[in-house]
């Protein structure tokens, strides 16, 4: 029984997989494979499962640190995953501060060609700690990073657009391989980057790599409104998600863009059981695997005190929390983590468990039907265009989502029953071309 006809608005679903799952205790669960990070066969199998379930894309969140686990480098990983998939998008996170626009444009153009038009770039600026790996005196400030990032993205887009259609002539008679008139220098001269171009690769079947953006701070939102086609964000409550949705969609007109040129998909970590009790049991089990002392050390970075010095079942010392402005890095996440504690009067243990479960993203524990209800409600409340699904435990929880939640969403007419095409852009329903700002 379907409440919607087949042409109605459909959910965008991105699978955020990799390693053993999003719950901090997942690697100790008997069903998980803690060596999965380096195992390309594991990544391929997961992407294939997501493709069978008709997800729009798989997504890799990247970073330069090692404490989150030894893992493959995303460009090599996604290129290898492209071998055994044919429709699903491949979204990689790359920071602007410690990369170069020409290299990045080229990596994505190459991945995009290799995958037949399935690449997506999640634009982040970069983490503070990275400065120590890249011969830099220090990490630029939040404002400077975003200013440079705007320029960086502009260069990349111009490089992707530097080949006109049909530039590859291959005229054997006249000996003309590439028509030089259809491959254009961009001659970009900005404050941060000077790039002549053109890129050394033509566009892929999707035209250009899809641009994703994940910052939710003020300059992050502005960068997104100007350039992003898909936005990842952390929103803990429906009213907050509605406000973010209204705010960001409202900014698009300023850049000559329509509301359908950008889709918003917050992270969502559903914990699923056949029954509610089963789901709760798994949640408790996963929480029991977390090294409490160590996790509290980590969480204490958000406070001026160490939470290990406080009773774990006592109230969170919110008066000792740092303000969001103290965070130059991932500013928007501070409020996302602490707001539920403020709102719901959490104990330290509750805050810790919430942080373990979705590292700041909204979590929901329940049956497949309850999870589908949750998604349905947010999707139909002007709050989201879909979700980045972050299974707390892999592969078990993702399989439940695929087998139980996806069919329910399809029955309700909320999700596709077949891919619309073979490129990421086509499946997301995005236009074929990128909005290009005029060069500075």
């Amino acid at each position, binding site marked *: 029984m379907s409440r919607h006809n087949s042409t109605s608005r459909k959910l965008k679903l991105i699978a955020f997989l990799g390693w053993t799952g999003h719950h901090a205790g997942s690697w100790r669960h008997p069903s998980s494979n*803690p060596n999965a990070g380096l195992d390309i066969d594991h990544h391929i199998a997961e992407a294939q499962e997501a493709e069978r379930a008709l997800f729009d894309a798989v997504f890799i969140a990247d970073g330069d640190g090692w404490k989150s686990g030894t893992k493959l*480098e995303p*460009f*090599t*990983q996604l*290129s290898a995953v492209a071998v055994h998939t044919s429709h699903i998008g491949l979204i990689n996170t790359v920071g602007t501060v410690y990369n170069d626009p020409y290299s990045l444009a080229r990596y994505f153009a190459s*991945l995009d060609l290799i995958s037949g038009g399935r690449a997506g770039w999640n634009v982040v600026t970069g983490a503070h700690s990275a400065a120590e790996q890249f011969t830099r005196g220090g990490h630029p400030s939040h404002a400077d990073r975003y200013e440079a990032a705007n320029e960086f993205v502009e260069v990349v887009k111009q490089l992707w657009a530097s080949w006109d259609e049909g530039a590859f002539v291959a005229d*054997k008679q006249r000996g003309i391989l590439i028509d030089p008139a259809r491959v254009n220098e961009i001659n970009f001269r900005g404050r941060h980057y000077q790039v002549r171009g053109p890129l050394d690769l033509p566009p892929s079947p999707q035209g250009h790599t899809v641009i994703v953006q994940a910052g939710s701070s003020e300059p992050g939102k502005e960068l997104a409104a100007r350039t992003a086609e898909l936005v990842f964000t952390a929103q803990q409550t429906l009213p907050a998600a509605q406000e973010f949705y209204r705010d960001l969609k409202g900014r698009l007109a300023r850049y000559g863009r329509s509301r359908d040129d950008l889709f918003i998909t917050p992270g969502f970590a559903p914990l699923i059981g056949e029954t509610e009790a089963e789901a709760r049991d798994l949640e408790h089990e996963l929480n029991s695997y977390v090294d409490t002392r160590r996790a509290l050390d980590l969480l204490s970075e958000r406070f001026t005190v160490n939470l290990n010095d406080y009773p774990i079942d006592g109230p969170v010392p919110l008066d000792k929390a740092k303000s969001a402005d103290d965070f130059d890095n991932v500013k928007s996440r501070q409020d996302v983590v602490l707001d539920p504690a403020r709102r719901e009067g959490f104990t330290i243990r509750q805050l810790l468990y919430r942080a373990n479960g979705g590292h700041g993203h909204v979590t929901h524990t329940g049956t497949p039907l309850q999870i589908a209800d949750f998604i349905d409600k947010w999707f139909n409340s002007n709050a989201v265009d879909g979700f980045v699904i972050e299974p707390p435990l892999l592969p078990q929880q993702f399989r439940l989502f695929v087998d139980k939640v996806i069919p329910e969403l399809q029955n309700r007419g909320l999700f596709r029953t077949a891919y619309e095409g073979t490129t990421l852009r086509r499946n997301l329903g995005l236009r074929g071309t990128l909005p290009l700002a005029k060069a500075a």
Partner: protein
Amino acid sequence: MSISHTPRQLHFNTFLYLTGHHDSAWRIEGNHPERRIDIDYMVDIARISERGLFDAIFAADIEGGPSKWLEPFTLLAYLAVKTRHIGLIATVNTTYNEPFHLARRLASLDHISKGRAGWNIVTSGAEGAVNYSNKRVAPHDERYDIADEYLDVVTQLWDSWEEGAVINDKAAGIRYDESKIHEINHTGKYYTVRGPLNVSRPPQGRPVLVQSGSSDRGKDYAAKWAEAIFTAQHEINEAREFYNDVNARLDKFDRPPGSLKILPGLCFILGRTEAEANERHEELASHLDLAAFTANLSRRFSVDLSDYPLDKPLVLENPKQADQVDQVRSRHQLVLDLIRREKLSIRRLAERHALGRGHASFVGSATQLADLIEEWFVKGAADGFNLMPGVFPQDLQLFVDYVVPELQRRGLFRTSYEARSDGRNITLRERLGLRAPKPVRSFARAHAHGPGQSASAPSALSSPSISSSVPREAAPSVLATTHTT
């Protein structure tokens, strides 16, 4: 393992390059130049190479330049999944890549391919600067200083995770043995990198290091770091001189003979008969643009050749010399020597240049090519070749179908891919008969030397830029485990 008991064997790579190494390859019937960026086409070439039991495929690159081919890491990671045995060598420039990114991508490719990754180290790249915010490209000799420190950083990063650092004990809740994961805290003249890498130790310990410079400084650099050299050598006497020169330098860096494989480029047009090969070559040559070639030649040597007869032996008056150019000096010298030695006309020089851009070139039958290869191999001019088929895939197929069996009959080339007794495939490093790398840092150095050797590295091995390292506690002797022969 059996490979140490068989007589010395040839090594072959397929040098991926557009749709053929002859400049006119794309002009002939049946060649599809647009497929230079088609991954399925690259898969075909990799599979033919694997059918031929080659050691590796080699992806060239010119970052920021006009090359117009797939980026090597994305290309080779894809091919890694499509192949099982063959090595995957990526060209990556030290000028435009952070050592951390590069160490990470190579380690990742090594994990994905289960120990088949290699890195062709390139230091030049001035032509790319216009696309990299006019990044300064250091002059020739300083580039090698930078590259020296670069290698120091990259090898330290690969060593930053010891074997056995990943524990993943679910019951005890221990993921890593953090005493086996090391910050490198490198602070040098050109790079400051804390480490550790975020990829654990690559299966080969260290991806195979390849280098291709042929200048004096380049040869020293190769003798210090490289495990294979791709070089352009016109003819056997020059090649032998180069071979002896480079091998003689190994001792200076405390490296044993045989630890560096010399693989000259070899470009070829094959036919089932010599006549058929000549016919194919003539057709290719007929597409050459001699006017453009003459103009290039004039520019390169600062001599006006616009009125010079095309078929008269070329004599250059006061040509610009190699030491007056900054990029690829060795290639410049090669052309000068060729003109002088063989008294070529502009037309013949153009034909020669079109066939492999200054590498050794060959037109003829499979048996004749096998003869040439055998001669270079047994006379100490090469350990194998970086194969440059004139036209893809035809010349590669002909090589695999006719030259390989001939060399196998002569006992010069493997008849199957070697495997371990447990059935796992061997690594590229093992296939090339190379040793496990010596760990570069103090936290590993104690285990890097065999019995009877000094524990402190000889001075030639330490570059002046080695960082002020914090001494590390001794680690268990698990680092040098990929050495199996």
